[in-house]
């Protein structure tokens, strides 16, 4: 009985530890999701199975880092969607904590900036923990492996959030270049300062 209790405790402890480290690593299979877009349509990752991959970016309205990258995210989509790697933006924040990130204001922002890519709302916050996003903006570059999407790169868009003209390393573009050459990205994980994902 005591041993059983101990095993149970160890099991609980182990599951807590696993939970804390949840989220994808490069090479993991990315789960499908179905979320509402700012135009009211439901969009799934599986809708993209005719593409070579997808640039999934957790981002939002309020975060200054996200705002600083908006134009660069639009440029990424315009350059790489025709090459088979479109952007899918997802707002992971709970609007009850961050009212600027409500669905209504997402719609407004998408219209103001004329986003050429879907801007989805992670309603119920089920998708971002599965991916392991911790901040906005946070990029998960996926490649299509035929019957599933595999995580090829996790991290920042580039190495300079303050000034697009001063960027020296274009992390996402470099990873895409490697993928297009049939190679795994040489740099497949980077870090950047960002806003925490807002939860209750």
């Amino acid at each position, binding site marked *: 009985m005591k041993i059983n209790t101990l095993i149970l405790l160890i099991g609980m402890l182990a599951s807590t530890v696993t939970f804390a480290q949840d989220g994808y690593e490069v090479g993991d299979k990315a789960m499908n999701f179905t979320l509402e877009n700012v135009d009211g349509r439901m969009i799934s990752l599986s809708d993209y199975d005719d593409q070579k991959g997808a640039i999934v970016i957790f981002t939002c309205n309020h975060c200054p880092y996200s705002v600083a990258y908006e134009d660069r995210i639009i440029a990424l989509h315009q350059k790489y969607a025709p090459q088979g790697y479109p952007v899918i933006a997802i707002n992971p924040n709970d609007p009850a904590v961050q009212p600027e990130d409500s669905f209504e204001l997402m719609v407004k922002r998408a219209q103001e900036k004329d986003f050429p890519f879907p801007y989805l709302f992670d309603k119920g916050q089920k998708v971002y923990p599965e991916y392991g996003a911790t901040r906005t903006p946070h990029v998960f570059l996926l490649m299509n492996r035929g019957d599933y999407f595999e995580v090829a790169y996790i991290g920042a868009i580039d190495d300079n959030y303050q000034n697009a003209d001063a960027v020296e390393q274009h992390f996402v573009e470099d990873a895409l270049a490697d993928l297009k050459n049939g190679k795994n990205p040489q740099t497949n994980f980077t*870090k950047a300062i960002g806003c925490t994902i807002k939860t209750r």
Partner: protein
Amino acid sequence: MPKIIFIAFMLILPIAAQAQPDAQVPVYDYEGLQPLLQKQNDTTYVVNFWATWCKPCVAELPAFEEMHSKYRNQKVKVLLVSLDFVKNYHSRLLPFIADKKIQSQVVMLNDPRSNEWIDKVSPQWSGAIPATLIYRNDQRKFYERSFTADELDTELLKFIKQ
């Protein structure tokens, strides 16, 4: 002619903003900040990474201010490292510090190459703020989370009671 003056003014303005930081709030790149993250003495340093635009950061600032005043006469030092954009140094950061009457030491870290320095602060840091580092000599602990005053106090006591 007025147009030229205007253009010249627009060119000088951002340079002036960067070149003349308030002596009370120095602006560092990571190399400049690093010595403040690894002092070797018997003081415990509580280093909080924050920004004026970061809601949970602003919410927990009173906890750090409380710590600053509570341990004023002990070997505890609070350092607030602002990650505000440098263009907002005069327009947002300094007015915020004055408005909230921040007593702890504030510095600005202006180094966009965060992929290079985040791991140097702590490999445990994903890059989200608020984040806090507590250290004394080689004993270090890093937290990517928010604190209440009581929670922060509990963590500090683990350092100073040794």
